[in-house]
């Protein structure tokens, strides 16, 4: 796994006259799970959009290692993204979806990698030609994770991945996040769930009104610690 840091240097993002992020400077380190917390409208999803390269910063730079993330399209291959929506084609089967993305990423030994991924997320037993549209929410999220991990990205971005999952699905996903952290991957998780964040995060970032209100790194956090950091950072919220 790569040792490259992902750094944001004085990053700002505006939409018209609305300032979504201002002067954000952060460093995300491989082998850590960074939980990005904050109230609605704090800029969490905007931040994830910038990290994923789906959006460009209005000010500042986002640097992976020593390369500007927004200037090199090949760096997109370093990113895996799991959002609330699965990001797969409903008309294709799980295998066909992975086959498509394996070909677009130019993955060598694609079929073997697809087998590995399907087995890892527990979809190796599903009907071979069953369209993803027929999958349950939990199965879709498993497929989404398989797609995100298929090309072995350095950075994994999660945007409220457990928001529509049942407790068993959420527990499974937390286990997968843990596994990625242990494998040395750089993981950024945007969530409202402070308890889930505490269970896996070693880096807590709280955004408030587009600015970093808390940036704390520890070997582990308890739920109470995360809640205390969150409340302190968001105190005085209008």
């Amino acid at each position, binding site marked *: 796994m790569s040792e490259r840091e992902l750094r944001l240097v004085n990053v700002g993002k505006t939409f018209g006259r609305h300032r979504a992020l201002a002067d954000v400077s952060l460093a995300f380190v491989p082998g850590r799970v960074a939980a990005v917390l904050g109230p609605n409208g704090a800029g969490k999803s905007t931040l994830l959009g910038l990290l*994923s*390269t*789906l*959006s*460009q910063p209005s000010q500042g730079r986002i640097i992976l290692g020593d390369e500007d993330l927004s200037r090199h*399209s*090949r760096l*997109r*291959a370093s*990113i895996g*993204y799991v*959002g609330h*929506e*699965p*990001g*797969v*084609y*409903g*008309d*294709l089967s799980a295998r066909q979806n992975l086959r*498509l*993305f394996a*070909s*677009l*990423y*130019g*993955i*060598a030994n694609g079929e073997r990698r697809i087998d590995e991924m399907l087995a890892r997320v527990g979809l190796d037993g599903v009907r071979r030609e069953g369209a*993803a549209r027929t999958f349950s929410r939990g199965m*879709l999220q498993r497929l989404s994770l398989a*797609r995100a991990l298929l*090309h072995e990205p350095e950075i994994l971005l999660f945007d409220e991945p457990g928001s529509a999952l049942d407790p068993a699905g959420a527990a499974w996903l937390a286990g997968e996040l843990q596994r990625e952290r242990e494998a040395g991957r750089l993981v950024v998780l945007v969530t409202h769930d402070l308890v889930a964040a505490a269970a896996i995060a070693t880096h807590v970032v709280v955004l408030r009104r587009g600015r970093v209100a808390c940036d704390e790194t520890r070997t582990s956090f308890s739920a109470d610690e995360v809640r205390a950091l969150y409340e302190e950072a968001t105190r005085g919220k209008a």
Partner: protein
Amino acid sequence: MARPSWAGQAGRIAWKDLHIEGRSREVLYTMGFMAALVVLVFSFAFISGQEVTVGPDVVAGILWVAVLFSGTVALSRTFDRERESEAIRSLLLSPVPRSAIYAGKLAATAAIMFLVELLLTPLLAALFSAVLWPHALWLGLLLLLGTIGFASVGVIFSAALLRARSRDALLGALLFPIVIPVLLAASRATAYLLDPAAPDLDPALFWTRFLAALDVVFVVVGLWTFEPVVMGD
């Protein structure tokens, strides 16, 4: 990782769309129905009894009106499968150049439209007694060029309206004024080709070349503008 070439990536995206359409045939059937309906409505207006009273320029006009409306149906669905489950995000996050995504979507849309046109044109010829065979290949080339010109603009607008709520209504309103030159060139050239009394085919050649030049301009502009349009940032 040995990343596929630009053309290879565009081809994979086109193949994916054609594969899905080959299974569902949703767009194909809807387009075919719309195109046949347009031709039939014109036939009710222009054909009385055994007598066909329309000239080749009217037949050409009917053909391209049918292409326009049925093509708009195809274009309104171009990014439907990307919008569903936010698959567009995964596509945009992949290292595929955005211009290759555009080229793939254009190729798939144009292929589906062209298939419908190949079925539509004989129906039109049968209903309006148009003579196709003397210049069948040329007519096929015209259909292809007209389709590429129309779809090259349409895919851009379809991408721009990806997240718009009233995209179906807006697509036609935005697209039709821009593609007027394509339709003008295609229908003029088609009229000359369908006219058995035409003294020579120089005007048809002129309009065909004009159409090809428009295609080059529209496709280049499409390749260039697709990324900022689809990112919408």
